[in-house]
């Protein structure tokens, strides 16, 4: 089966620091691929290259077998982009629109749907993330977890083939991560192709079909969670788990 997204030989240099140093990754369709690694390892940059928010210095990315070129025209970029949904660490909901407005916006301006149709669809998406009754509130009136669920609904309303998550729970208070992870779990069960950058090792271990551990711009270990977390572990992965993850989580996957 064609992978949902395939990255080969990706190089990204900031100044003279190679943030990505020849990354190869193939994210299977209808599965969750998780990128883990210490901060500065390049996992977010990798995800941002997949979203075309960063331009790589070398290497190629293919989405569903089609090459994705950032040098292409803007329309083409928009065309490919509309097949990718992105969820940001900071939610990035538009503060001047209600939850419903945020979800319906692209349906109206980009897909040119009439208001009623767009809002019906937006409402259905908000219902799926359990926020139908908050549809008319503004982002500042919602908790972080609720905002992130609206952001997920906003991406899903466009029927993407692939969803990218950039540390979706890192800006949340611990008691709010669960509601977001549950939405993501349900999405994974429904067969959505997902690439997730996350520090939630428990989530990664239970949901991922494929895990890639990055360190200093390279994928050091990759495979199924069983393979990656199995002992003996790669020494850098062990170090990462001990340094970055709280003890309970590392025991969970021990």
């Amino acid at each position, binding site marked *: 089966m064609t992978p949902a997204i395939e990255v080969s030989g990706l190089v990204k240099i900031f100044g003279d620091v190679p943030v990505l140093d020849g990354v190869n990754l193939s994210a299977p369709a209808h599965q969750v691929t998780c990128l883990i690694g210490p901060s500065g390892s390049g996992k977010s940059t990798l995800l941002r290259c997949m979203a075309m928010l960063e331009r790589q210095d070398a290497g190629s990315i293919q989405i569903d077998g089609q090459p994705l070129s950032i040098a292409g025209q803007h329309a083409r970029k928009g065309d490919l982009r509309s097949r*990718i949904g*992105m969820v940001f660490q900071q939610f*990035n909901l538009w*503060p001047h629109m209600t939850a419903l407005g945020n979800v319906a*916006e692209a349906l109206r301006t980009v897909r040119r749907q009439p208001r009623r149709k767009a809002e019906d669809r937006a409402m259905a998406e908000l219902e799926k993330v359990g926020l139908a009754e908050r549809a008319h509130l503004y982002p500042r009136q919602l908790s972080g977890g609720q905002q992130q669920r609206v952001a997920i609904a906003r991406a899903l309303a466009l029927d993407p083939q692939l969803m990218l998550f950039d540390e979706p729970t890192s800006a949340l208070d611990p008691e709010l991560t669960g509601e977001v992870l549950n939405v993501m779990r349900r999405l994974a069960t429904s067969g959505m192709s997902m690439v997730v950058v996350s520090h939630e090792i428990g989530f990664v271990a239970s949901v991922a079909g494929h895990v890639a551990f990055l360190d200093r711009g390279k994928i050091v270990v990759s495979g199924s969670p069983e393979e990656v977390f199995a002992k003996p572990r790669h020494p850098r992965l062990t170090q990462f788990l001990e340094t970055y993850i709280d003890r309970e989580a590392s025991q969970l996957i021990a």
Partner: protein
Amino acid sequence: MDGKLFLLMVKAAGVTAVCSVLAIAIGIAIGIVVCGATLARPKPLQIAARLYVSFFRGVPLLVQLLLFYNLLPAVGLNISSFFAAELALSLCTSAYQAETLRGGFLSVSTGLKEAADMVGMTLWQRFRRVEAPIALRLTIPAIVNEAISILHASALVSVIGVVELTKTAGEIAASNYDPLPVYACAGLLYLIMTYVIQLLGLAAERRFPVRSA
């Protein structure tokens, strides 16, 4: 100071109000265009906008008033003092407002723009639906500030013969030899007008709230 003089002052305050409101409105319209040019891709547009801002912010309003008043008839345009005054006030405030707006656009966070890119918006759609509404909301307090300072600066238009509130107060004070109540009354009228602007600004902020999420 009797009722007749007071009425005269209120009428003069009307001139001040009309002068200022027109200048602020025209200034916002021009300011948006100039701000757009400073942020636009083509270099010549940017440079032209920068020069515009430098000139109208750099030359004092008083000098601009005298320049327009004397320059336009010299090139064969016969204009009234009021028109010259309006022109100078509008152009001057538009330069300040263009910069205020530019500040607003620069403070729209990258993440909000990236979110617009990710749902497939074109640059124009992103500008129209995301950047402009947020930037305008962010600049409401600064625009209110500028409106008040234009209201005050409009006293300068009397140098080219437009008789507004301060000028009227001066004339009354000079004729009745009792300046204190006259200037107190002028001050009060200015205060009332600025208070109205403040209230409008607060209403606008309440109607269009924005706090970065």
